[in-house]
């Protein structure tokens, strides 16, 4: 009996009809998963690893202290930092020049992990196609501009509130002020 059934299934192309029924059901219960880019765009999560950006404090000063940790951590040698003393404040440093060669960047996020002051952030921008590769060599102003676009909420600058402690942006409210 099973042999007859198997023979019958062979001549009526049974399994092919089963497959055709599957495709037809996709046609009749039409649920496309296509996203009509660029008319519709996806909502990207907060921790999306898009274009890099340099961040500022709430009073507008740059967070970057020019420590070169990002340059050392990068697997592709993308970052070049020239650091200098902040003119007028000899204990503070900043990055005089900051270049990132985005043509080589892997967007791995290790520079963001390495930065001790959270000066680097990754935005949700990914539409960075350019006609000339030189436009992807970003300097500090461009990176800061990207940061201004994507990170409107800035971290409060705490360190200036305690003149005796020139440490990272950590509140030292518990440390008493030294007499001058």
């Amino acid at each position, binding site marked *: 009996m099973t042999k007859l059934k198997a023979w019958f299934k062979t001549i009526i192309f049974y399994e092919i009809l089963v497959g055709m029924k599957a495709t037809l059901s*996709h046609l009749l219960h039409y*649920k*496309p998963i296509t996203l009509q880019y660029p008319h519709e765009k996806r909502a990207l999560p907060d921790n999306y690893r898009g274009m890099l950006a340099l961040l500022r404090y709430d009073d507008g000063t740059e967070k970057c202290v020019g420590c070169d940790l990002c340059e050392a951590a990068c697997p592709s040698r993308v970052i070049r930092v020239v650091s200098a003393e902040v003119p007028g404040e000899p204990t503070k440093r900043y990055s005089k020049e900051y270049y990132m060669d985005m043509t080589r960047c892997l967007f791995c996020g290790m520079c963001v992990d390495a930065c001790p002051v959270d000066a680097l952030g990754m935005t949700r921008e990914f539409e960075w196609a350019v006609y000339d590769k030189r436009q992807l060599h970003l300097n500090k102003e461009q990176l800061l501009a990207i940061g201004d676009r994507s990170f409107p909420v800035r971290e409060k600058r705490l360190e200036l509130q305690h003149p005796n402690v020139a440490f990272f942006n950590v509140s030292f409210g518990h440390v008493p002020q030294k007499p001058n």
Partner: protein
Amino acid sequence: MTELSLRLAVSLAQIAAVMGVVMLTVMILTLAERKVLGWMQDRMGPMEVGPYGILQPIADGLKLFFKEDIVPAGANKFMFSLAPILAMVPALIGFAVIPFGPSNKFELFGITVEPFVISDINIGILYILAFASIGAYGIILGGWASNSKYSLLGGLRSAAQVISYELNVGLAIVGVLILAGSLSLVKITEAQSGGFWHWYVFALPAPQIFAFVVYVISAVAETNRVPFDLPEAESELVAGFFTEYSGMRFAFFFIAEYANMVLVSCVAAAMFLGGWNAPYPGTILEHVGLGQFAWAENIAWFTVKAYLFLFLFFWLRATLPRLRYDQLMKFGWKVMLPIALGNIVVTSIAVYLFPR
């Protein structure tokens, strides 16, 4: 005007109308295939050009028209240009004998005009088969003239496949011919009038179900469609015999393939499914009282049947994987051919025993 020039003018007008409709169908088919395939695959198909992608065929046509005319180094230029034409013309020429509507005749300046068939020659279906065989020349020439190993292999395989399955097509139709007693498509269609039980697929004394299945499978194979599209399998020989073609020549091959599909669907509709006959006797418009417009309903039924076949082509493309070449040939010669022959024997015996 002389009678000759009048008849010529009428024929040219008919040809222009039919070719126009066929070309329009081919254009719609290129879009319809992508859309239907997309819908079956959970995606949308072309959506950018025009609302819901309707103007996509125009964009495709314009693109092909403006492409650079590349002839590979070492190719025989004459043959290279001849091959697409040899592939396309037989596909389009077959439409001359297909009846799209009922055989109403009317008088026009002294000549009889049959508006719904360009030329009712008495060897109708044989004419179509003969010209389909010439299509195989186009394939072989295309493969050889490209001066490329891939194309040569693809051309040879495709030609062998087309010739083998043409035989099956011919044999599958013989059952219908025995039942109809005539080669002319007009007469075959008229013999199936009266309701779907008269259609040759169901008609007693010998329903042609097996012949129909053989015909459908062989038609898919002859037009190089999935699951028999090995010669143009993208993933194997890039595009087989038309790898080296681009621009308008590629467009001709493309049109040839789709026109072949349409031709084969029309023939299937005419021979097995009753052509322009409705599934019920007569036509609705006749009963309603608008008898002189009944032809519109008939044409509509013919179109529906042809489009159902074309949908079947797309459906098969979405579902099935490809047959390997040796499996394809084995299937055609060892399975399809005996079934077609068996069908002829059974039909002959049935017709002999139960003459009408």
